[in-house]
């Protein structure tokens, strides 16, 4: 039982821990591994494959939306189903697994742990994710999913989706427990690296919000299976939809902030001052993304509204928390931007691809926050339109861009390789163009009031996208083109990873190719079994930078730069 297993670093002397494991065949060593690096790599591999699939599906949906009459791949009923697969798949089959996979590899290294907490649970979480994803996709193949025509397949979709959420929750639980319980001596919580901190915030938020979704799914399942008093096939999707919209969608971007916060000081070659303030800003951003309070309003507005003939958005968009959080979330982003600007001002930035991805990711996220602030201003009447879709696109692709930056930055730890730098910069350009067109198109279509068809369909049934103005059609076309460019960019990320894995190295990559600040750079690339030879004594938030500067005491030459800042 994983929950009660013995923590390896606690009971075994250091010399035993670093002894090489007994030889096993390569397939078993991957498939049966509880090693956090192996499990994390598996997560990343399948999430990247599904990123390609999800972007292709959403692009086809986008093109169909431009001209429903002339380009009809799915048919009206299927269009609704595929739209829901596209939206949920991008978040729960791609983005969350990408974040969890990256964190599973990096977080234990950053906090100086020899293993992740509950390694067998981490492994079970990956296999659960894989099986659940296959089941969710399969249910669409047999006319299931929200709005499906096969009731049994719809029921199976509900169960599969709940299984998927539970698996992802289990993975995030392992990461959160690692940050809380597996830190080395001296690494107090205020010295935790910012990516690990962001994962602690994110994991806690997911544990606070996704169980609410599980509860709703259970209720929907029981009702759909037995009573059918509340939820018809079309009314299921709104119960999920709050996860994909403001404010809950912001929980996905919290790790993006952590990734940027770790890359900027290292690539900027400067110490990050005000570490505590940066931690506070990340936590505040996460708090403003707590969206579980929206579930009741979504269900009231769309599922059981007394005005059943049309969607009644008033209970949804009149909530002061929704409005306040949509505006307040800009504050922590500005604080973080100030912190990074200060760091770069004092440093000599390297224009490495990871750094450029980090900057690009935060710029796109800032756009998302600005779009979100406009969204909640009621007189603008943007809520319920495709403006919401565009705003969510910005959050999602800001996070994807930051994650790809993280892959460039931590590639030595992930695979003992470096990704192609120049190639990566070219791909970043595609990401920015694609995101701009996709999100910009959806935002622009929302201004004249094009409704979010998927949600309206939940109440009224889907009647196709017809009768839109030329302006909206052009905007929809731009969004579809942006989606196609993002397919290409995602494909090229995979190409870059594959190409780098075939490059032969004359000698092993250095453990710390970037002059890193945090503990993951204090071990080999890739790390050996057990991660570290010995447990380090940590005395600041940037222990390796301290060690390089020969500044074991607080009174070194750079002390004003804040060894103990924050």
């Amino acid at each position, binding site marked *: 039982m994983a929950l009660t297993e013995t923590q390896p670093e606690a009971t075994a002397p250091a010399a035993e821990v670093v002894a090489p494991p007994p030889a096993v065949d390569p397939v078993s060593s991957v498939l049966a591994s509880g090693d956090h690096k192996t499990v994390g790599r598996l997560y990343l591999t399948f999430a990247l494959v599904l990123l390609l699939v999800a972007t292709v599906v959403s692009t086809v949906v986008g093109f169909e939306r431009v001209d429903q009459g002339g380009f009809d791949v799915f048919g009206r009923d299927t269009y609704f189903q595929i739209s829901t697969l596209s939206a949920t798949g991008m978040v729960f089959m791609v983005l969350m697994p990408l974040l969890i996979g990256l964190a599973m590899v990096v977080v234990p290294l950053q906090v100086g742990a020899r293993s992740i907490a509950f390694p067998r649970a981490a492994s079970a979480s990956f296999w659960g994710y894989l099986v659940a994803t296959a089941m969710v996709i399969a249910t669409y193949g047999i006319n299931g999913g929200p709005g499906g025509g096969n009731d049994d397949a719809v029921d199976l979709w509900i169960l599969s989706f709940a299984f998927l959420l539970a698996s992802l929750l289990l993975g995030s639980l392992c990461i959160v427990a690692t940050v809380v319980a597996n830190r080395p001596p001296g690494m107090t919580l205020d010295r935790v690296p910012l990516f690990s901190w962001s994962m602690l915030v994110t994991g806690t938020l997911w544990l606070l919000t996704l169980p609410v979704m599980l509860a709703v799914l259970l209720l929907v399942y029981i009702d759909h299976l037995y009573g059918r008093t509340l939820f018809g096939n079309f009314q299921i999707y709104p119960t999920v939809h709050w996860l994909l919209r403001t404010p809950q969608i912001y929980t996905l971007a919290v790790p993006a902030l952590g990734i940027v916060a770790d890359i900027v000081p290292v690539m900027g070659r400067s110490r990050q001052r005000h570490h505590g303030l940066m931690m506070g800003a990340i936590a505040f951003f996460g708090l403003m993304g707590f969206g*579980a309070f929206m579930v009741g309003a979504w269900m009231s507005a769309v599922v059981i509204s007394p005005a059943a003939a049309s969607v009644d958005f008033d209970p949804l968009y009149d909530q002061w928390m929704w409005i306040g959080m949509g505006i307040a979330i800009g504050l922590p982003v500005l604080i973080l931007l100030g912190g990074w600007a200060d760091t770069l001002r004092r440093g000599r930035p390297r224009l490495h691809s990871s750094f450029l991805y980090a900057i690009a990711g935060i710029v796109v996220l800032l756009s998302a926050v600005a779009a979100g602030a406009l969204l909640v201003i009621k007189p603008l009447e943007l809520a319920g339109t495709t403006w919401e879709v565009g705003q969510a696109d910005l959050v999602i692709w800001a996070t994807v861009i930051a994650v790809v930056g993280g892959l460039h930055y931590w590639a030595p730890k992930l695979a003992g390789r470096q990704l192609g730098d120049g190639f990566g910069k070219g791909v970043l350009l595609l990401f920015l163009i694609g995101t701009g067109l996709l999100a910009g198109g959806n935002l622009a279509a929302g201004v004249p009031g094009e409704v979010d068809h998927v949600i309206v369909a939940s109440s009224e049934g889907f009647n196709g996208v017809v009768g839109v103005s030329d302006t909206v059609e052009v905007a929809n076309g731009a969004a579809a083109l942006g989606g196609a460019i993002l397919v290409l960019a995602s494909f090229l990320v995979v190409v870059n990873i594959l190409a780098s894995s075939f490059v032969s190295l004359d000698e092993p990559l250095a453990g710390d190719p970037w002059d890193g600040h945090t503990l993951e750079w204090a071990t080999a690339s890739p790390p050996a079994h057990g991660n570290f030879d010995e447990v380090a004594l940590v005395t600041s938030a940037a222990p390796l930078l301290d060690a390089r500067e020969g500044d074991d005491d607080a009174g070194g030459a750079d002390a004003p730069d804040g060894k103990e800042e924050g």
Partner: protein
Amino acid sequence: MTDTAHVLPPAAPPARPRMVSIGTAFVSIGTVMFFAGLIGFYLSQRAVEQAAGGEWLDGFEIPLTPPHVMMLTLAMSLVTISWAYYAIVNDDRPNAYLAMGLTLLFGVAFINAQAYLYSLMGLALRETFQAVLIYTITGAYLAVLGAAMLYLAITAFRALAGQYSPQQHDGFVGAVIYWYVVVAIYAVIWIAIYITK
């Protein structure tokens, strides 16, 4: 390992972290939010129905005696699980075994009482959404209580095998935390569904 691995001073081996109890605490947070979602939806639906002048439990009765007995049963289980905890801390193993056994027995008694209550209610699942909500909440609670009993049973068997000591009883603490949380959740269900109706 690279050179940088040796520039940091080594630390003494860390004390055994409270991994299991910390993990259980996070699982408990998730469990609480799960029931917060269910009960919140139940209460909001009831408020809507009553605001419209309707009768919430129209046409059927929920007898109050069994829910009271169930609450009392779980309240007594709090005493026995605390007894088990202090017995472990004081290395009084016979008392620990007895208290853990009694706690599990209270759990079984609760399940039995819930089954009896279902038979008294005679509520058809397919007829009203009140029935869907009540069966979903109470059924999910039975599942969670079962998980808590399984967790406690595993720690009980581990204790019987000689594990846990006054100094090291992290796994058992996890089971105790989860039991407390599960009982607290029932207190909310008891008030929300049975007392305030």
